């Protein structure tokens, strides 16, 4: 069952909270992982691995660099998750 956009944002918020300690309510679609959420390039790998597992999606390393914001990641997952 594919996740909705809202479910993905909630899921990413929980992951970012676990990885970087940012309160879930601060994780919004317009927020930059690096600039706003204290997720550096290493921690971003953790976010990606957790998101892959949670949303049953593959995010190749080459695509990770394009996921600047929570919205970017949400759209990527919406588009690529298994139906």
């Amino acid at each position: 069952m594919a996740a909705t956009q809202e479910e993905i944002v909630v899921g990413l918020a929980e992951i970012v909270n676990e990885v970087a300690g940012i309160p879930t309510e601060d994780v919004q679609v317009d927020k930059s992982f690096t600039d706003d959420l204290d997720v550096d390039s290493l921690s971003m790998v953790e976010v990606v691995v957790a998101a892959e597992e949670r949303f049953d999606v593959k995010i190749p390393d080459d695509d990770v660099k394009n996921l600047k914001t929570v919205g970017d990641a949400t759209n990527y997952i919406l588009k690529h998750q298994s139906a």
Partner: protein
Amino acid sequence: MNATNRTVVVTGIGATTPLGGDSASFWEGLLAGRSGVGPLTQDWAAQLPVRIAAQIAVEPGESIPRPQARKLDRSAQFALIAAREAWADAGYTGKAGGEASLDPNRLGTVIASGIGGVTTLLGQYDILREQGVRKVSPHTVPMLMPNSPAANVGLEVNAQAGVHTPVSACASGAEAIGYAIEMIRTGRADVVVAGGTEAAIHPLPIAAFGNMMAMTKNNDDPEGASRPYDTGRDGFVLGEGAGVVILESAEHAAQRGATAYCEAIGQGLSADSHHIAQPEPSGSGIARALQNLLDATDLGPAEITHINAHATSTPLGDVAELKALRKVFGNDVDHMAISATKSMTGHLLGGAGGIETVATVLALKHRVAPPTVNITELDPEVDGDIVRDKPRELPAGTIAALNNSFGFGGHNVALAFRTI
């Protein structure tokens, strides 16, 4: 004093140890003669021949938030806790160049461990085998590298004069502090955060040290297992924790009105070149380190009133150190109160020089030598005045104290401190 021979003082101390989570509770435990050794109750310990250790009194998770802790090896967590205490104790808050009015280019860190991020390395290998490549933490390398505690403390205080990690097994912590003294003495830095840390309580190191016959297997009496100088000693007890000091040039400390605990006089170094893991039994290598200390500094044997000995509770090592003291200091050894604090803390490997320097600094401050516990029958080969069972008052006036640390590989480090 010219720019290349400056006086160095200790202006802050911090520790997290098996006896307590800060330097005050650590010192209190030492004076009370309390053992930090207990049984290992983890499932993995059941199969091991050694099932005791001196585990940390206060888990680091109580002061380091989880998002930060998950990027730090346990040894770096200990170092950070001890460094934060020492930094605050020295009167600093925040980062150099920010809240702390200190030039980052004049601030260094030198923090060492004996075997680095060993629990991270082994834990991530378990994850690799059990959960696959993708689950190996991207933080693994910066967590397991031996310089990680020094680097993380450096980031915390914004140290830019240099961040270093001398590695010499169980002498690492002392070597770090000696290195830091030299950084200040020779003018590279005004302030250095220095010490040692270790977190190696894990089945592999325990199995390996156990198979070397280096550890006691006295599982039935954890508190009595670490017994330096006793006839029944049969190896060390593994401990964990960190000790950190703030070293500062005397001028810098005076300019900012900081109170110094004592002078950090300097270090004496040597290498045995005898055996990869056994001490040279006559203590000749250790003696050369002590002689080098006397030759390199204005320290004289007459003023040394206390020695925090390396004394790990091994048959050969404890006595070799005493032979070296007699060889170099002669009759002056008789007025030196010798304490083996590992009888209470266990052996913190690279952390030992850190917490034992903290203990030595506090011994000078309070003019009290902590006791050596668990000597029921003093080894007749012991030639020296061992402080047994209860603390002992140290004399008034200007007095000096040594902290000795030796490591597998034949590394010998003697550090000297003096009241101001």
